[in-house]
């Protein structure tokens, strides 16, 4: 890739267009076809109406009291803590995994990449069952964990974190791997010529360069963990204070106290909107 500008030979070219701006890109004439507009409007309504319904039916007058209820606060706290710890776990394991997939060629890399994305398409309940089989008390690894460390994961807060991390990690890995592939590897070569070991290159050059991708991946990962239901209820159960996260509380409240379910849903909706807004800002601010 040699970008040489040939030494300028001044040729008597055609006169530069005097004020000849290219015509402003013209609007496509005519109305958009109803065959496209109609389904588009229906689709929009389909996406927006349920959220509007949530806002319309919310018990606004009693909202403050309901939000202050201990069960709500407990579920919210548990959700935030678990999602955050799960995201930290995903970062710790997912970033190196993404690096391996993007930077090291090894036999079976395509297969590994496919395996990494399986939890993305797997029904979360199935994920929960699989986790039980492996990490459950009588599971392959679970048995050993209990015998060696006295640790049991199922039906504990740790279990919630494991379930959430299992479901959410692919989001992080895919996002970070994309960032790694997009990053110019020649910066890493430049660092190597300056005497940086591969670990130093990763820490001081690669990681800062892909930080926007890591951040975006972490936010997606966190949002996915926060909303996790299927794997959590299957693997960790539904115990108030230890494993009953917000989505579980919403589902449970719907049967006994629909208004509480609405309030809890509103909280999750608010959190999602905030995440979306923060992501937009990040994407807008990074060139």
């Amino acid at each position: 890739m040699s970008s040489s500008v040939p030494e300028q030979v001044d040729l008597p070219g055609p006169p530069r267009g005097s004020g000849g701006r290219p015509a402003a890109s013209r609007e496509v004439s005519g109305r958009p076809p109803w065959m496209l507009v109609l389904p588009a409007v229906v689709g929009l309504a389909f996406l927006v109406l349920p959220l509007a319904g949530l806002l319309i039916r919310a018990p606004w007058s009693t909202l403050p009291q309901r939000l202050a209820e201990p069960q709500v606060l407990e579920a919210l706290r548990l959700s935030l803590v678990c999602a955050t710890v799960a995201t930290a776990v995903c970062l710790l394991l997912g970033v190196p995994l993404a690096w391996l997939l993007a930077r090291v060629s090894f036999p079976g890399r395509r297969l590994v990449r496919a395996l990494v994305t399986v939890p993305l398409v797997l029904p979360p309940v199935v994920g929960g069952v699989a986790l039980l089989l492996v990490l459950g008390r009588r599971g392959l690894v679970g048995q050993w964990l209990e015998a060696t460390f006295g640790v049991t994961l199922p039906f504990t807060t740790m279990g919630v974190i494991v379930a959430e991390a299992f479901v959410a990690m692919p989001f992080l890995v895919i996002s970070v791997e994309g960032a790694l592939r997009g990053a110019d590897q020649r910066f890493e070569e430049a660092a190597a010529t300056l005497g940086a070991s591969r670990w130093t290159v990763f820490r001081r050059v690669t990681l800062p360069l892909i930080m926007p991708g890591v951040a975006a991946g972490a936010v997606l990962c966190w949002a996915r963990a926060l909303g996790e239901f299927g794997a959590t209820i299957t693997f960790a159960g539904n115990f108030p204070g230890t494993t009953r996260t917000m989505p579980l509380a919403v589902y449970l409240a719907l049967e006994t106290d629909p208004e509480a379910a609405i309030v809890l849903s509103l909280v999750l909706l608010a959190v999602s909107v905030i995440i979306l807004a923060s992501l937009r800002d990040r994407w807008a601010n990074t060139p």
Partner: protein
Amino acid sequence: MTLHARLVVTRPAFTLDVTLEVAPGEVVALLGPNGAGKTTALRALAGLTALSQGEIVLDGRPLHTLPAESRPIGMVFQDYLLFPHLTALDNVAFGPRCQGVAKAEARRAAATLLERVGLADRATAKPRHLSGGQAQRVALARALAVRPELLLLDEPLAALDAHTRLEIRSQLRRHLADFDGATVLVTHDPLDAMVLADRLIVIENGAVVQQGTPAEVARRPRTDYVARLVGLNLYRGVADGARVKVGELLLHTSEQLDDAAFVAFPPAAVALYRTRPDGSPRNLWQARIDGIERHGDNVRVHLDGPITAFADITPAAVADLDLTPGQRIWASVKATETHAYPA
């Protein structure tokens, strides 16, 4: 710090095989057309491209067995590759930090180097706020900061505009003169090579086709590529005394030679006539005009015929002669304007 290297890199459709010797303090330019393999050679020296065969020995120590990060090299990349998230100062301090120098010490050394390249006031700037010339100087300071024994420069001036280039070229020349290790630079620009290098190595298709001092190479080109670079018409023929037979044409020269020989003459030495000139210039042939283009202040006429040649004439002469492509014309060169040398 003498560098001795034989670089062999084999690719499916390309083989690089060059041998280099660079003395301490010497600047050697690898010159060649795009795709000749000069950047591959540089990357092989740096350890960024693996050698298929050969060796790199610096001061008796083998380098080719070491990974890039363990070689005592400094490299300036074509588009500099300054780390965008670090300030100019931290970019320069990066190498010393990797070598285990304490942070404060590394930054002090970096500040000294930035001052040497005249950028003390830009130390806190991020690379995206540096001009092309400034970025080039930061890249040079960064490469020198690791105290390399071998300095590698890949097209160091190619990314600069013509005006900045002139200034940076003379600065770079000064810094290279101060550097006491071996320097290898890659360029496709003959002017950069002539100004910066003590010795040129011309690479074509992965092999060395000519080497020597800039003056030697400029005076005695040995391939069409080099001849074009230095602006000479070049022919290979068989000499017999003061005459060299090039194809069907017999060229009279001022040198006495035997056997295979090159004949070179500058395009400006070619005179053009509409009709066969009176008197007898020693070298006269009939040619067909293949093309006419502006060349600096003059006009370059491409001639086809017994030999293909460029003739540089003034715009006024073009008008006088009423030249048009396809036209037949007489061309002549004085024997004293030619230069013949053994092939």
